[in-house]
């Protein structure tokens, strides 16, 4: 039996385990007590991490669409065809683009970015999860600089106070939830902010009820209450207290908010965890900034064992950002218009970089004529859902690199089979900024190749090529200075994992911004709020949908509700005479939809929530928004 240490491919906690293989076939997972994050503890996804690669619909040979059918071809033919068609489109002046992925490795993402910028001469490069987390990351950046000062997941267990703005942490980031349970068991105060009384909220010392998309209302209340405590000596960060307080003049806090503020302000060790919100982008960015300010002015961003973590759903969101798979960023997450960074990257790639900012993922999907999708199924990830699929079906030349036969792979003009997590070499960066190695436990099936190899070959058809994954990582160390030396640090045996030291306390900026709450959306005519659940939908991810054990939990509800459902609180359901499974008619300014309801006891009155996976069922009602006012009737 072969035992291969590797990093978990699911959420961004970055746990580690051994993949077990026998006679060239994956057979299981074994926990590791010595892994610095997981310490022997895994969630249900981690325990079944070997399954998708073994049981999934795997892609085995390169395919080109001819006469309406995907036909198998040789690698050379496939790669030449891809390069040729993309060059044709470029020569015809048609827009092309690349989508990297938060489930791809750093090496794959870096090469995807290089292929776009140096090869295809475009900044049309992004990743599908980015629309969800962009406002959150931008808000934290306003206060903390490029990356927020992370608290280690294990340090959360010794926090005295934890402020958690969540979707549903126990489901999205079980390893983080595990640390919180340990802290609460030891007497820590857990303060949850959210619209649902989740498992974490039930264990909290205080649950501060928020309106979906307007979590800032609570966060600003906390900020104002903390400013009122006048604890100037808590941090060396220069803060204009009076200006900040004036900015929050209209904010009124409750007694609970004041109690929470007191706990946060007095704690020696505190953890601040924030998930993406379903609110409008600008509001979400401001709310995230307010959240970071809260941590900064209480001094928790400049001491050990305290800090902040953005709760990014997928394993390598941080890595995708660091590799510059973002339309306005370069490797190192440096701004595209930063002259020094541009020069640095140009010197390495030997090519002048395009200067015009590229299109963001959702626009990119709907505007380009040629698109390369690396290891992802955009319609299951981007908020616009099946509209992305409709857009991709119109694309003149769609290239997909994936290990699995996803819906996107099915419509590709060129389908390039790559290795899954269990067969690849490379690195991923978790939410703490820990770079970890993936190691191959088996060979890829059929003629599939590792993703970095395929992308390097494509790069080679435009620019240059590489001989190993380590080669790519070495170059990443030059292009993204934070990763300098990582290749060497990871070459040693053992888990290790290179923690990036990228936070510079001197860059903390706490300035007043014009605080505007989200205007009340509801009216007499439309008295309910319909919100798109922010918790990531793992059910459509191939790592779950192809795992016999995991898909059962995620898909059982879908089988029972083939037309989807929206969740409604018990009180509202009774008032509207809606029982579980009954159709409701939802009407907003955007349109109308009929959808079954599921009655929940953890939702407050006036609120309906649609699970992310069923967002397409109410896309007429939501329009392009994550939360909107609706009229609800029994259909």
């Amino acid at each position, binding site marked *: 039996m072969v035992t291969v240490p590797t990093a978990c491919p699911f959420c961004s906690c970055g746990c580690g385990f051994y993949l077990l293989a026998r006679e060239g076939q994956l057979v299981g997972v074994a926990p590791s007590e010595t892994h610095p994050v997981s310490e022997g503890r895994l969630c249900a996804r981690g325990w079944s991490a070997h399954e998708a690669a073994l049981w999934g619909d795997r892609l085995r040979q390169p395919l080109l669409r001819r006469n309406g059918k995907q036909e198998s071809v040789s690698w050379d033919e496939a790669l030449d065809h891809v390069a040729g068609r993309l060059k044709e489109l470029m020569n015809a002046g048609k827009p092309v683009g690349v989508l990297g992925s938060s489930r791809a490795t750093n090496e794959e993402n870096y090469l995807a970015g290089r292929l776009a910028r140096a090869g295809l001469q475009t900044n049309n490069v992004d990743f599908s999860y980015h629309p969800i987390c962009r406002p959150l990351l931008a808000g934290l950046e306003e206060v903390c600089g490029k990356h927020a000062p992370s608290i280690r997941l294990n340090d959360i267990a010794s926090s005295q106070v934890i402020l958690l703005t969540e979707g549903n942490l126990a489901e999205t980031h*079980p390893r983080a939830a595990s640390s919180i349970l340990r802290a609460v068991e030891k007497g820590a105060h857990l303060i949850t902010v959210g619209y649902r009384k989740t498992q974490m909220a039930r264990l909290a010392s205080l649950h501060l009820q928020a309106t979906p998309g307007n979590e800032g209302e609570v966060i600003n209340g906390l900020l104002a209450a903390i400013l009122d405590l006048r604890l100037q000596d808590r941090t060396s960060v220069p803060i204009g207290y009076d200006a900040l307080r004036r900015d929050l003049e209209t904010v009124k806090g409750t007694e609970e908010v004041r109690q929470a503020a007191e706990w946060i302000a007095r704690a020696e060790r505190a953890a601040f965890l924030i998930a993406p919100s379903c609110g409008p982008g600008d509001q979400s960015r401001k709310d995230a900034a307010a959240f970071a300010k809260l941590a900064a002015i209480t001094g928790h961003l400049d001491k050990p064992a305290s800090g902040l973590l953005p709760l990014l759903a997928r394993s390598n969101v941080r890595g995708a950002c660091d590799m510059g798979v973002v339309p306005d960023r370069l490797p190192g997450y440096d701004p595209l218009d930063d002259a020094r960074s541009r020069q640095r990257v140009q010197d390495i790639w030997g090519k002048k970089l395009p200067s015009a900012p590229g299109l963001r993922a959702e626009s990119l999907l709907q505007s380009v004529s040629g698109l390369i999708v690396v290891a992802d199924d955009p319609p299951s990830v981007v908020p616009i859902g099946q509209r992305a699929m409709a857009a991709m079906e119109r694309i003149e030349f769609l290239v997909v690199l994936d290990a699995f036969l996803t819906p996107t792979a099915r419509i590709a003009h060129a389908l390039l089979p790559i290795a899954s997590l269990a067969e690849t070499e490379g690195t991923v960066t978790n939410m703490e900024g820990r770079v970890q190695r993936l190691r191959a436990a088996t060979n890829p099936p059929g003629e599939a190749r590792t993703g970095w190899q395929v992308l390097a070959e494509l790069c080679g058809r435009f620019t240059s090529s590489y001989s190993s994954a380590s080669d790519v990582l070495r170059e990443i160390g030059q292009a993204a200075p934070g990763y300098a030396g990582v290749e060497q640090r990871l070459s040693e045996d053992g888990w290790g994992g290179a923690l990036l030291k990228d936070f510079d306390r001197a860059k903390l900026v706490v300035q007043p911004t014009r605080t505007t709450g989200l205007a009340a959306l509801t009216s007499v005519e439309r008295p309910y709020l319909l919100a798109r659940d922010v918790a990531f939908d793992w059910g459509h991810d191939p790592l779950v949908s192809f795992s016999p054990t995991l898909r059962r939990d995620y898909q059982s509800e879908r089988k029972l509700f083939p037309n989807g459902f929206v969740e409604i609180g018990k009180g509202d359901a009774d008032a509207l005479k809606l029982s579980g499974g009954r159709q409701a008619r939802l009407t907003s300014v955007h349109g109308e939809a009929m959808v079954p309801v599921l009655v929940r006891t953890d939702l407050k009155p006036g609120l309906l929530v649609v699970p992310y996976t069923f967002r397409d069922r109410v896309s007429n009602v939501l329009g392009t928004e994550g939360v909107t006012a609706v009229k609800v009737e029994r259909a």
Partner: protein
Amino acid sequence: MAFSIEKKAVTKWLEKLLEAGEVVAPVRTPCGDVLFSTIRSAEEVVWDFPNPLHPPKEFVLPQTDPIVKIRRNGQHHEVEAIHDGTRRFLFNARSCDAKGIAFLTRMHEMEPADASYLRRSGNLTVISLACATPCPLGFCVCTDSGPFLSDSCDAQLTDLGESYLVEVGSAKGEAAVAEAQSLFRKATEDEVSRRKNLEVAARNHFGEETCHFASAMRRISTGRVPDALWEKMGDWCLECGGCNLVCPTCYCFGVKDLGRDGTWIRCRLRDSCQYAAFTLEASGHNPRALRKDRMKRRFFHKVSAQYYTRDGTVGCVGCGRCIKVCLGTTHMPAVVAAIRKGKWHE
């Protein structure tokens, strides 16, 4: 029957066992963990180690266990059982794990007997290493499954300093010794008495972890655990299923066919009764849709008098693995204490 083997001769014994079959033993990985794995040479075997988190039940009940091959033949399907007939020696298993495998074997022997399991366990010789130093989180004294064994293993080694005492408990154990009979000599009375003293000393050196099954059994068997308590404990479980997956006595499974080119391999997959859809029925009805009900079911199976009567023991060997892997805080000793006291975190 007790033998003695000089420590320096153990390598030769292992070499003989390697010639006779597959040897599984604790080995240290480059990352510093100890895992049970097949070895190629005697030098790989670790002798001083905390019990690995990953249990050696992997070698009787693998996470992915091929049981039947199905082939299409014209209009028909041919079905052929897959039997793992490899002769295997599990070397340096800890006492709790030897007890766990014996528990699993008793369960799979019940009618209808599980031929696939029994073929594998029938070919497995368990050579355990008695625990002179109890592991920090172990509580095998509470479950009669350690630190030393008087049954349930084919042979038990005890470290006597310069040699190992080898107590043979079955014909398979005898055969394992017979593979290198010349390396063994009959144990002296002094050696047997030193082993007894080591056991007494080990029993006095357990850590803080204890698990009082008897009073918990009384309460759970007579329905005296309030629903509110299960509900409260349910919030401290993150449904990782780790407790089941590493438990030496858990055997829940799912079945899935791995198909390719007209042939399917039907596999038994290790599963967890704590997963929400584990008991989901085809109709859509789920008798244990709520976490508190799944948890209640798990501990009823592990601790109740009803199962104790059937199995002759509680469904726990006190290895302490669930304490380490539990993503929440609802491991065996914590829940047994809560059942016994009727309260959780108060």
